[in-house]
């Protein structure tokens, strides 16, 4: 042992003893250091979401220091020439100043926006992984409900965040949210007034309320839920795929210290790196181009952040059905696409573990994951449901297809009003038969593709070469 190592060893020993005398946590620390993580790339999706959340909190604290939730109208005299003399809210001006005058302000604002998009994308992919591998079964069903709740909160959080800016796009998003609130039968208007403090665009208390929701209430809720999510995983240990030496009652993988910790810190840094590079180099939400919000203005061809796209699609797809009896409008139209559709999607997600238990009668604890093909029915139901939501999401971009490719907008809407019900059925049967044949052949769909090169000669003969 050389002198440096000996010195380090002594310091480490002294530090550990210092902590032990106060906490007596050596056993717990040892347990955490030896905690085993099974290796599979798809297990990193949840980690990416976690690390994007870390970046969101960091950049968010910076942004909070500069944002002013004021609705009073001011005249802009800042450094962005094209908006000189424009009338805007104090909130919008504070974000313009943050973007143009605060050093690194635009960088952190854009990193924050990119991080929000990546955060929710990672959660959705993580949810797909959990669904298609059956990771939501007992004992992880409780954690699955928490995860679905976090997805819902994350979408609300993202929407609240870009609504705070009070640019034209965020105002348009808010008025649609207000309309959806109003569309809830019986109590909609009361609910809308409760949130906005009056009729749209709301009283001067609205932006401060929204800010508290965005910077305190939802992040605090997410932090509590994330803590529970992780603690629950550690108690149960990660699920793993079947493999050599891997059984229901053990977990095979890399211990936290040192290799896994370094790799995971590497992932945190890589996520942060991608987000910072994107925030520095790829423009996102250029609010100075949208301009300030006024209720009588709107942007043509506007698109929300991706995770709101499914709601825009649903609102657009809905036929103009609005039943009224006498003086009462029973179900205002935005209710279908803006409230009923997402509520149904989340209700389906919440009820699936229970539904599957009912259908299969399987109440056992499962710590080995399924390969998607091994459960053709579940995989087919998941793929069909996913395709249903993805189609509605894609309908949110039909206007872009019209602008870019000149495909008639009305024709697209009429087509998808039928297609949104037919296509998922096709997806169900295709997925199920693909799963069944994969299970029969035992081949990996990407790694083990087999085939032969077929070449037609000039005389019509067909020659085969094995690949």
């Amino acid at each position: 042992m050389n002198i440096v190592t000996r010195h380090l060893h002594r310091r480490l020993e002294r530090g550990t003893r210092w902590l032990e005398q106060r906490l007596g946590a050596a056993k717990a620390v040892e347990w955490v250091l030896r905690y085993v993580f099974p290796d599979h790339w798809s297990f990193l999706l949840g980690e990416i979401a976690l690390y994007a959340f870390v970046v969101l909190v960091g950049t968010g604290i910076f942004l909070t220091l500069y944002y002013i939730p004021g609705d009073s109208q001011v005249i802009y005299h800042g450094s962005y020439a094209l908006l000189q003399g424009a009338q805007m809210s104090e909130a919008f001006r504070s974000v313009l100043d943050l973007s143009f005058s605060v050093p690194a302000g635009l960088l952190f604002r854009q990193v924050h926006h990119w991080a929000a998009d990546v955060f929710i994308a990672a959660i959705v992919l993580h949810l797909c992984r959990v669904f298609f591998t059956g990771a939501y079964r007992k004992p992880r069903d409780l954690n699955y409900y928490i995860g679905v709740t976090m997805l819902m909160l994350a979408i609300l959080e993202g929407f609240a965040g870009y609504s705070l800016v009070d640019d034209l796009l965020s105002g348009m998003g808010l008025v649609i949210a207000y309309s959806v609130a109003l569309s809830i039968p019986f109590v909609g208007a009361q609910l809308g007034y409760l949130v906005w403090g009056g009729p749209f665009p709301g009283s001067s208390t609205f932006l401060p309320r929204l800010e508290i929701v965005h910077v305190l209430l939802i992040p605090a809720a997410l932090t509590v839920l994330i803590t529970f999510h992780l603690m629950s995983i550690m108690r149960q240990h990660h699920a793993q795929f079947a493999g050599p030496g891997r059984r229901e009652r053990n977990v095979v993988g890399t211990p936290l210290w040192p290799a896994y910790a370094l790799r995971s810190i590497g992932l945190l840094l890589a996520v942060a790196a991608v987000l910072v590079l994107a925030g520095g180099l790829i423009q996102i939400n250029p609010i100075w181009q949208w301009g300030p919000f006024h209720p009588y203005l709107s942007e043509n061809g506007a698109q929300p952040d991706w995770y709101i796209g499914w709601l825009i699609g649903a609102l657009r797809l809905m036929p103009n059905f609005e039943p009224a009896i006498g003086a009462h409008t029973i179900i205002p139209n935005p209710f279908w696409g803006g409230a009923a559709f997402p509520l149904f999607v989340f209700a389906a997600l919440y009820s699936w573990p229970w539904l599957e238990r009912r259908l299969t009668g399987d109440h056992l604890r499962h710590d080995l994951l399924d390969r998607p093909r091994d459960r053709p029915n579940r995989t087919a139901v998941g793929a069909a449901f996913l395709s249903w939501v993805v189609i509605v999401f894609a309908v949110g971009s039909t206007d872009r297809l019209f602008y870019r490719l000149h495909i008639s907008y009305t024709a697209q809407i009429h087509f998808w009003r039928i297609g949104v019900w037919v296509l998922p059925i096709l997806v169900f049967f295709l997925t199920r038969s693909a799963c069944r044949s994969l299970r029969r052949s035992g081949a990996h769909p990407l790694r083990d593709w087999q085939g032969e090169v077929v070449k037609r000669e000039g005389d019509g003969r067909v020659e085969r070469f094995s690949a």
Partner: protein
Amino acid sequence: MSGEEPTPVKRFARVLALLLAVRTLARTLAGREPPPPPAPESEYDPSQRTVPANRQAETVVAALLLVAALLGCGFVAIYVALQTNTQLLGLALGGMLVMLAAAAIIAGKLVVPQETQVEERGELLVEDEAEEVVETIEAGVEGISRRKLLAGAGGAAGAAAIAAAATPLASLGPRLRGIHDTPWHHGVRLVDEQGNPYPAGEIQVGTFYTALPEAGGSETFGAGVLLVRLLPDQIHLPAPRRAWAPEGIMAFSKICPHAGCAISLYRYPTYEQTSLSPAFTCPCHYSTFLPGDGGRVVFGPAGRPLPQLPLMIDDLGHVRAAGAFPEDIGPSWWDVHRGQS
């Protein structure tokens, strides 16, 4: 294309070969060979530990960390010197993070000991322990004779406490004050965004104008209106509304009755033989309304026609409102005042 050019198939094969080579290289570098075929379940123990002692990798990690330190200093320098150069700031900070990430991942894979461990999961539910919890909880209510009474009283107190805690929510304002109001009344002059009145003679056919009430309140929901002039044969208003469109000039709420966005698209026929009638379209969900038919919905999700504002022309030739909106503007709700159409 000359004869020596590789065919697409060959090119594809080359790319594939290159990718495979990169993968093999990466796997070799990482020291990770494909796993051996599984042994029978009972004998196979996947535990292993290797200590790499890889001096080359250590050098690479140290170099990456030093470059990261350099880039971090670069970020500080750019912050001080250039302040708001977002691209350079992002490159420096992002570059630093890339280096750190690479260092951490390479260290995790090549520098530190590589281990595969087996950990037993153990049971989550241990019957005796669960039973003990139940007993402990039950022991705490031992000797209480009137449980039902206490539970009922506790429930009542709890419900009252929740109600008391929730009541202040009411002061947030669920009374629907002003939900039917707009700033438009008889005689309010229509002005543009700069506050200039609209002389009737300057309203052109084939375009639309955004008008606000002169009286103020331009930031309120119902302020914005669409102002258009149609040709006489394009107007098919019901009889009671004929007087609302002097000289063929008409005004409609700019707020879409579907989801409240400001309507900002106007389709006007440029070739009469094939074109459709003039129509307003909302850019959010593409509800389409015919001004000539009193705001009737012809496409999209809107469940109510676009509310029309009665107009008149004053002695100076300026356009004014001839009354309030006869129905509610904005999105529908339970008690929305629906128009006749």
